[in-house]
């Protein structure tokens, strides 16, 4: 991994040679590895190492961007020239108010970078997978599936307004799917664990949950679609929160009047016990302390006691509103998906999942959701299916496994119909987005299932 001195030297050279009025340099580094297993055998085992150098050159209000994955001086200069040439041909962007100024923020938590995670070897990953396979086999499950990944990622941001910051994070994620009856295509169970510290992940404990779910998910029944009380485990809530974020937690969505929060700020839109905010400094969270523009990440309260409060900003969207400042939620810029929540948290409550089940006369317990899709963003309507373990609850007990169900549900209604919030929060990460979510289980009434599938 390149050092800050190397990068400072590279950046000094670019600042010296540029003809741009303002310049931003973002360097990312990725050193990641992943072992995938299926049918209780390792079938894919990879490692990759790459860097990214992105340059944003500003001429007045004209912006040009270019990127390369080489950190050589020649490639950096070529990329600078390309960004400047694009800026020369660009049209002025009346909404652009300049690159951010240097701002001091909270220091990165030391827990975000854990050396054993960065150094976790292919032999250690393979040994953990072997333990999972052996544990499952001892319980009578001969087919387990999943992945174990560890990564070290670095972010360096410098601009001509004085920002110059570097940090790195580590992440380890283990997933286990148990299929207890492969021949009859049933018995699916799932569990996962995510942490910046790989030593905090117990592969056998994760496997145990997946195997138990799989073994209890054999003789599946069907129920009629309709409204049910649901107990949604934290992994299912992660999906709902992520889609709430996509549908409306960004200032860009609000400014373009396509957020479900438009016209709702200051109003009660969810149950009074719902608190959702974004905060990298939370003790359980992982991340750099600044965003891809080098702005310190601020805590942003999005839903407070059920009331819509605020959304996240980058410097571009902040520049479009009088008196607003970036909250430190920029993605690599320019970017039509920016800003985005990156460390989303939902407050915990006081119920265990067992208590949620015990207090339900008739309902459905859901492990997780699959392949959700936004049906209507302003109405916050989402569809998706249950996956890897869905059970009927009758008279306060889990009575039988169910075939998977499709829901089509207004999420603000769902978060208004909360009857219980879990005591424990769980941390999740996403492969495609730089997002972490920390959330509890929820018990929700009148959750609308609109169809079912055959398994």
């Amino acid at each position, binding site marked *: 991994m390149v050092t800050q001195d190397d990068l400072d030297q590279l950046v000094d050279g670019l600042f010296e040679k540029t003809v741009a009025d303002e310049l931003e340099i973002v360097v990312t580094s990725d050193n990641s590895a992943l072992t995938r297993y299926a049918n209780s055998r390792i079938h894919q085992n990879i490692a990759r190492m790459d860097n990214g150098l992105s340059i944003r050159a500003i001429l007045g209000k004209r912006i040009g961007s270019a990127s390369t*994955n080489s950190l050589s001086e020649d490639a950096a200069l070529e*990329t600078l020239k390309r960004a400047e040439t694009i800026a020369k041909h660009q049209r002025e962007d009346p909404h652009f108010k300049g690159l951010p100024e240097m701002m001091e923020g909270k220091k990165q938590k030391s827990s975000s970078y854990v050396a054993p995670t960065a150094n976790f070897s292919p032999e250690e990953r393979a040994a953990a997978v072997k333990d999972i396979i052996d544990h499952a086999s001892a319980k009578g499950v001969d087919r387990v*599936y999943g992945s174990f990944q560890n990564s070290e990622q670095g972010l360096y941001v410098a601009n001509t307004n004085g920002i110059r910051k570097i940090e790195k994070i580590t992440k380890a994620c283990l997933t286990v799917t148990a299929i207890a009856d492969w021949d009859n295509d049933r018995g699916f169970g799932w569990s996962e664990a995510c942490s910046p510290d790989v030593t905090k992940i117990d592969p056998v404990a994760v496997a145990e949950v997946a195997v138990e779910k799989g073994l209890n998910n054999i003789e599946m029944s069907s129920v009629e679609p309709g409204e049910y009380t649901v107990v949604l485990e934290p992994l299912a809530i992660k999906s709902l929160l992520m889609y709430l974020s996509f549908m409306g937690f960004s200032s860009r969505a609000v400014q373009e009047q396509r957020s479900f929060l438009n016209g709702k700020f200051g109003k009660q839109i969810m149950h009074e016990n719902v608190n959702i905010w974004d905060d990298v400094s939370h003790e359980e969270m992982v991340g750099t302390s600044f965003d891809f523009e080098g702005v310190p990440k601020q805590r942003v309260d999005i839903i407070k006691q059920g009331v819509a409060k605020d959304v996240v900003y980058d410097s571009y969207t902040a520049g479009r509103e009088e008196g607003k400042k970036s909250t430190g939620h920029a993605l690599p810029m320019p970017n039509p998906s920016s800003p985005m929540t990156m460390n989303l948290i939902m407050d915990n409550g006081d119920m265990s999942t067992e208590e949620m089940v015990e207090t339900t006369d008739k309902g459905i317990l859901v492990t997780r959701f699959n392949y959700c899709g936004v*049906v209507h963003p302003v109405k916050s309507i989402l569809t998706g299916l249950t996956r890897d373990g869905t059970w009927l609850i009758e008279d306060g007990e889990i009575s039988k496994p169910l075939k998977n169900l499709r829901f*089509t549900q207004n999420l603000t209604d769902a978060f208004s119909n909360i009857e219980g919030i879990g005591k424990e929060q769980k941390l999740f990460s996403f492969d495609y987005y730089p997002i972490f979510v920390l959330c509890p289980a929820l018990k929700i009434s009148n959750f609308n299932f609109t169809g079912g599938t055959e398994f």
Partner: protein
Amino acid sequence: MRAGASMEDLLEYGLKEFDKYGLRYGDIRFSDISTESIYVKNGAVESIKHWQSCGYGIRVIDGGWGFASSSILTRDGVLKTIERAVKIAKASSLASDMIKLEDITIHEDEYVSEYQKNPFDIELEEKLDILIEAESRVKTDESVKVSTADFKAWHFEKLFGSTEGARIKQDIIQCGGGISATATDGKDVQTRSYPNSFGGDFHSEGYEFFKNLELVENAERVGREAVELLQAKQCPSGNMDLILETSQLALQIHESCGHPTELDRVRGTEASFAGTSFMTADKLNSLKYGSKNVSIVSDATTPYGLGTFGYDDEGVKARKTDLIRDGLFVGYQSSREDAAIVGVPVSGNMRADGWENIPLVRMTNINLEPGEWTRAEMIEETKKGIIMDTIKSWSIDDKRLNFQFGTEAGYLVENGEITCLLKNPTYTGITYEFWNNCNAIAGIDEWKLHGVPNCGKGEPGQVMRVGHGCAPSRFKDVRVGVGKW
């Protein structure tokens, strides 16, 4: 290529180094990828970006599979990456079976995709003029709050070599774009796009494809339709005939035939992530997937398809494979390893997203063969139905059985005529029931090839560009208008 002529030298150097390890199999794949994107939104050129990414991936079998990739373009970099791949392969052997690869014809060849004008050679000004004009014309009304115009182009230079003697050089250009209008009246939001949503339509073709999309000429219609949707009737609920336009049918094919016929999913290697498939090996040559009208192929040779190439990333020559023939499930998309295990032909579907990722079974161009109807005849012969156009939302279960799609626009058909515009159209069904209810497919004159640039699969996530050719088609007794509105 960034490293110039040394790329070939590095490949030969790496392949020679393989000898020291006595590997059963090894391959090295270099890629130099350039991407240009322009995004115009609400009167501003919000971004013009150029990316370049160059590096190599090394795949070996030594007890188990090992793969390592790097962007360090030196002999030392290649050497260390080989060492890393071999170390990983040895670690895999702790829980691996004996790996078999189906034999293939080994090629030494070069392939260049067909195009007239390299989009990277076209002056930025020319592209900007088209996009700015199109975007400004989309804004037909005050209620159009978001108007966009997109352009994107890719250039892939690839070099592949293996211990079996393959040496393959490929040069592929891809290009396309689109426009969209999002209108709101404060209560509702509706979007209309052309020629497709999520950035437009794309081909393995030159700048001429982008120009022939006629974004400027279609802009006012798109803006007008977004505004009209605000006042349109809500899509009714119930069961009725459904006519899908090609941009929507492309996604239907993608999700309900493309993914479930990927043999790695069938074998379970995506079980923990993308999912498995209901089209298991015991159903091959016996499952009645669709009606007699339905024949679907995987075809990497389709002219200008976004999934068209000379060779896949295992060195298998591009080919056409029957997946569904006259309604019967007859074939899979496969890798050399999958084919050897299951005992089916190698289909040449192994593709990697960039140099840094391992190849996976991916779609090429999954095409529905044309029928003998016309779209007009289908409408004329429909008593009650809905025409749906342009994907808006999609969701399908992890075996690819239960799906639900939402489209941007719907048109009610009553007694053979289109009677009104519908908003928020949705439809749902079970894959094989849906395709068995296909009772009309339009002919070759209305057959259109679409490009889907954002197909996600694998861990770590890979995004692939794939193609789908189809003509408007009709399905009977489909459940529409799902959920509470």
